């Protein structure tokens, strides 16, 4: 019945095209500075601390942060903000514990710093495999975000977005390595922060409005399961064409006593929201007489104060249910977010791009300021999307761009293009970290010697091409999952595999190469197996009943980080340190 198309918006096409061309031109211009290994992997260590700090933000504020968190807040309220809190908290560990030793000990890759004391091929191999797997897990949500963005932006299917990101990133990374990646991330970080601040100001300026039936707001029509939804989300008919009895309110607006609140300050905005009844959208599924499953989006009236507490979403509902395992799951996720940041290879290698330890610290402080500011804005963006009446109820990742659309097509084009740019920046960093692990660590392990500079760069470029292709395929396979949810898994795996080994290598004199390698292997394999056999994976990836899952809860960090640490310590104690071996 309803044509499920989005008309081509030429403003969006123009802005998007300009961004893409600018990125490619920048990469082309900077390409000549990346012919050596130091230039390709570490931008010659000549990036200034301020540029590097904003580039940290550009690298870190991925699709998960911008699209995923805003989407989670738009649908579930405070639960999405929990990710903001956890993601930022991790930077304290990075700043106070690992930043300076990493800069001092490392050269190009995560394995360099880990292996500085040992010179072990086993440690190099374990760290390289860990870097590749963590990067791949982190790549998935970025590509999912790219696919989600391209649909309303250019009216194209998601696979085009995934393919476009894959191609552009491969060009960026293969042509100019860390130099262009840094500048892409710097520009993207600055643009993302500026535009989100503008968007938040517009949300506060708009305030809240009382529900008043009127013309449907512009929003892309989407299939919600087997039921077709109109732009304003009134469900019109079932799969066989019969009229359905669903008549949902096409708003999603806050209900207050007045007609309009008018502009609100940041505190008043939250106060009014807390005191109001809010229509939060839920998707319910039901079987008809023939047994066909129908999904339907419908608003559920919830008091604002309830939405501003944890425990609304399926992921965190256990906080209110009293289930011990659900609470353990929550603690485990928050632990993974806290310890994961300092374990992400694509973040750690950015410390090599500055000239000294002091610059590493200063750039982290700039990064924390920029990232923290953004995460404060996420609460306003998410609540603005929840109450703005422009949600796509079948895709939470689209909440922020559609919120921008409610303020006009130019802002929508800018926000969507920057969001696409966001994906480009993060994917570039991930592909660079992964290709470095292949070109330096794996090849050195396999060949038993270090290839010359040009060979390393050539291998890294081929590896970047392969990783870009893998990322595209994985992005299409996982396209229906929330980006931030997927990043939670990446943090669990990174923290379990890398953090115990990193701390042992940096701070424990008794650590041995066998112990370090064991910590990585045990942490990596146990967290990976746990995630793949968890309830979330059964329900959201395999489409199987969650009750059949093998693991008692979904987030493994609480078990697998100590497991990797204990394994590493025991093996270290059972083997001789290097000085005694010599």
């Amino acid at each position: 019945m309803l044509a499920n198309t989005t008309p081509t918006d030429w403003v969006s096409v123009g802005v998007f095209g300009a961004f893409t061309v600018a990125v490619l031109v920048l990469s082309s211009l900077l390409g000549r500075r990346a012919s050596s290994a130091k230039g390709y992997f570490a931008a010659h260590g000549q990036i200034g601390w301020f540029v590097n700090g904003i580039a940290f933000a550009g690298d870190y504020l991925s699709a998960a942060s911008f699209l995923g968190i805003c989407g989670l807040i738009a649908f579930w309220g405070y639960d999405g903000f929990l990710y903001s809190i956890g993601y930022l908290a991790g930077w304290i560990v990075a700043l106070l514990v690992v930043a300076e030793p990493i800069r001092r000990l490392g050269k190009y890759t995560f394995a360099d710093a880990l292996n500085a004391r040992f010179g072990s091929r086993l440690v190099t191999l374990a760290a390289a495999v860990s870097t590749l797997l963590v990067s791949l897990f982190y790549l998935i949500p970025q590509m999912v975000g790219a696919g989600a963005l391209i649909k309303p932006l250019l009216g194209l299917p998601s696979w085009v977005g995934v393919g476009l990101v894959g191609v552009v990133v491969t060009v960026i990374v293969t042509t100019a390595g860390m130099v262009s990646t840094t500048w892409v991330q710097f520009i993207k970080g600055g643009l993302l922060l500026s535009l989100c601040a503008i968007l938040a100001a517009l949300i506060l300026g708009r305030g809240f409005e009382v529900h008043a039936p009127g013309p449907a707001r512009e929003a892309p029509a989407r299939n919600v399961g087997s039921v077709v939804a109109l732009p304003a989300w009134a469900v019109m008919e079932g799969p066989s064409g019969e009229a359905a009895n669903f008549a949902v309110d096409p708003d999603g607006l806050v209900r207050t006593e007045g007609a309009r609140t008018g502009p609100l300050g940041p505190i008043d905005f939250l106060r009014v929201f807390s005191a109001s009844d809010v229509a939060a959208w839920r998707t319910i599924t039901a079987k008809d007489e023939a047994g066909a499953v129908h999904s339907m989006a419908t608003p559920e009236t919830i008091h604002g104060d309830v939405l501003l507490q944890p425990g609304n979403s399926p992921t965190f509902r256990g906080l209110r249910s009293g289930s011990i395992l659900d609470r353990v799951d929550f603690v485990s996720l928050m632990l993974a977010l806290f310890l994961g940041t300092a374990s992400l290879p694509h973040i750690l290698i950015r410390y090599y791009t500055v000239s000294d330890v002091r610059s590493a610290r200063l750039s982290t402080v700039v990064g924390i300021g920029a990232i923290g500011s953004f995460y404060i804005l996420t609460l306003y963006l998410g609540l603005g999307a929840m109450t703005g009446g422009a949600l796509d109820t079948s895709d939470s990742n689209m909440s922020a761009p559609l919120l921008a659309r409610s303020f006009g097509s130019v802002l929508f084009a800018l926000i969507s293009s920057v969001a696409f740019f966001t994906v480009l920046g993060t994917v570039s960093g991930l592909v660079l970290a992964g290709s470095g692990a292949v070109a330096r660590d794996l090849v050195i392990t396999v060949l038993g010697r270090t290839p010359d500079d040009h060979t390393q760069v050539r291998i890294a470029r081929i590896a970047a091409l392969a990783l870009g292709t893998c990322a595209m395929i994985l992005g299409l396979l996982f396209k229906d999952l929330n980006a931030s949810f997927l990043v939670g898994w990446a943090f669990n795996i990174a923290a379990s595999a890398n953090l115990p080994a990193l701390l042992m290598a940096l701070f424990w004199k008794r650590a041995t190469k066998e112990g370090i390698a064991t910590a990585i292997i045990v942490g990596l394999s146990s967290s990976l197996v746990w995630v793949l056999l968890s309830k979330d994976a059964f329900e959201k990836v395999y489409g199987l009943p969650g009750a059949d899952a093998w693991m008692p809860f979904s987030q493994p960090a609480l078990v697998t980080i100590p497991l990797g640490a204990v394994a590493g310590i025991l093996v270290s104690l059972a083997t001789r340190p290097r000085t005694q071996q010599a």
Partner: protein
Amino acid sequence: MGMAGTSPGFAPILRTVPDQTAARSSANTSHRHHHRRDWKRWALLSLYIAAYGGFIGVAVSAPALLATTVIGGINLAVVWGFALIVLAFVIALAALRLPEQG
């Protein structure tokens, strides 16, 4: 000159003993300084862990407490969440004053 002329026999001892003591003293002082500045680093980290861990602990053990209205009609969950973000930046600024990590 006289000292210079007579010093060779004594010099190694005279120089060595004080130098070793000075070296040990310097090493001990450096070690103490190192511990002292590391103590500040770990204190900052502990402060944040306490604030972050406290938030998680309350969310898990007494979630109703987070619904308490505390400032300007805003509940504790939002205030604590914002405070954690601001505290991270304050700690980052404080960390700028720490000497380089040993």
